[in-house]
């Protein structure tokens, strides 16, 4: 069990990041993002130097280099966390295996970027890490194999964003990128609904999630801590009205003082092949079927 977040790092006047050199544009991007917020940067060339420095003094953020394997970065994180349980560490890697993302989540990495990745999304995640005055991991892996992962996620937007980035980090050549993007977009909509309507964005509440990779399908299950709802009574969402009617729900939301929204379920429904709710409406399964792999012509 870790100590409370507030005791993790002694207050310092200047925030410091420890970066392992990746080379090229990534180093420049990280320098620009951190410097723009007045952070100081210490740069090292390998993980051994990171361990020595991070044990000697706290760093507000650590970013690994792209050249190391994820297994080495996860081992690095394990060593640092024994002394600094609330360390924020972002893994960048060009060398990974399908199960690496589970190890990274299990060990409490702040985020995970496997090549190729969008530099702008890395910059965004670094800003998110910098914005957290103090950090406790909101993702707990309960069980994990490359085919089936079950975890819990804290009901807050930052945790949702981190979890979605972990999913983008899963690079499985047998899943077409378009299909993967659609599943992730649909999953995020359902996850946000679960956190907002089931968990009321209360950080003491958690959503339970499973990802299952079958030969010809991807499935996600999301269970929220709320009392559930009925799709038929969902007048504040497009899904509760005629599919052609994009506007009636907006009036209902306005009358009920809700923020603009109501497109999440519709979007998710259209992006996956099946969206199945349980009887009480607090548990949902998304299924995306994959085309069978093309056999070589003989």
């Amino acid at each position, binding site marked *: 069990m870790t100590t409370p977040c507030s005791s993790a790092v002694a207050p310092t006047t200047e925030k410091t990041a420890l970066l392992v050199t990746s080379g090229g544009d990534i180093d420049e991007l990280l320098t620009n993002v951190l410097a723009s917020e007045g952070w100081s940067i210490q740069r090292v060339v390998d993980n051994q130097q990171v361990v020595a420095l991070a044990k000697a003094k706290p760093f507000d953020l650590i970013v690994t280099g792209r050249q190391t394997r994820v297994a080495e970065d996860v081992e690095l994180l394990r060593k640092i966390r024994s002394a600094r349980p609330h360390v924020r560490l972002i893994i960048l890697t060009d060398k990974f295996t399908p199960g690496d993302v589970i190890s990274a989540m299990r060990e409490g990495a702040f985020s995970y970027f496997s090549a190729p990745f969008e530099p*702008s999304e890395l910059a965004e995640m670094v800003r998110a890490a910098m914005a957290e005055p103090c950090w406790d991991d909101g993702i707990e892996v309960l069980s994990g194999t490359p085919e089936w992962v079950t975890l819990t996620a804290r009901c807050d937007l930052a945790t949702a964003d981190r979890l979605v980035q972990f999913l983008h980090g899963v690079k499985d050549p047998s899943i077409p990128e378009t299909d993967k*993007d659609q599943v992730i977009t649909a999953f995020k909509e359902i996850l*946000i609904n679960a956190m907002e309507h089931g968990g009321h964005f209360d950080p003491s509440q958690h959503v339970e999630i499973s990802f299952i990779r079958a030969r010809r399908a991807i499935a996600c299950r999301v269970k929220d801590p709320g009392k559930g709802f009925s799709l038929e009574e969902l007048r504040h969402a497009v899904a509760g009205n005629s599919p052609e009617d994009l506007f009636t729900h*907006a009036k209902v939301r306005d009358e009920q003082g809700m923020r603009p*929204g*109501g497109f999440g379920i519709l979007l998710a429904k*259209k992006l996956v092949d099946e969206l199945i709710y349980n009887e009480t409406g607090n548990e949902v399964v998304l299924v995306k079927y994959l085309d069978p792999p093309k056999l070589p012509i003989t």
Partner: protein
Amino acid sequence: MGLQISTRESGDVVILDLRGRATIGVDSDLLIDHLNKLIATGVPKLLLNLASVTQLDSSGISAIVGTYVSLRRQAASLKLLCPRGRVQAVLRVVRLPEIIPTFENETEALASFRPRGYSAAP
């Protein structure tokens, strides 16, 4: 990148250039706030330039739809410009371009705001 918004004008058309993510949280809050202020000023013609928007989710869609409804109520109009990649895919999924006129070219978008039959030539 978090959402960045800049405003310019072409005649009586207000053009909002959006850059970055238009997704739930501070980004969609910023967008909604910006759009609501424009609606309150009685903007007659609004063009949302989505060319540099990298992500759009249901909150971003809601902001756009809400603006479309509010502007239509005050006999004003909203059009969209240059959605790209994932953003374009998401808009197509909810069939928004079938309701809100969407253009690939700014010149054509601006021309579409002008009344038909109007000619600037003497």
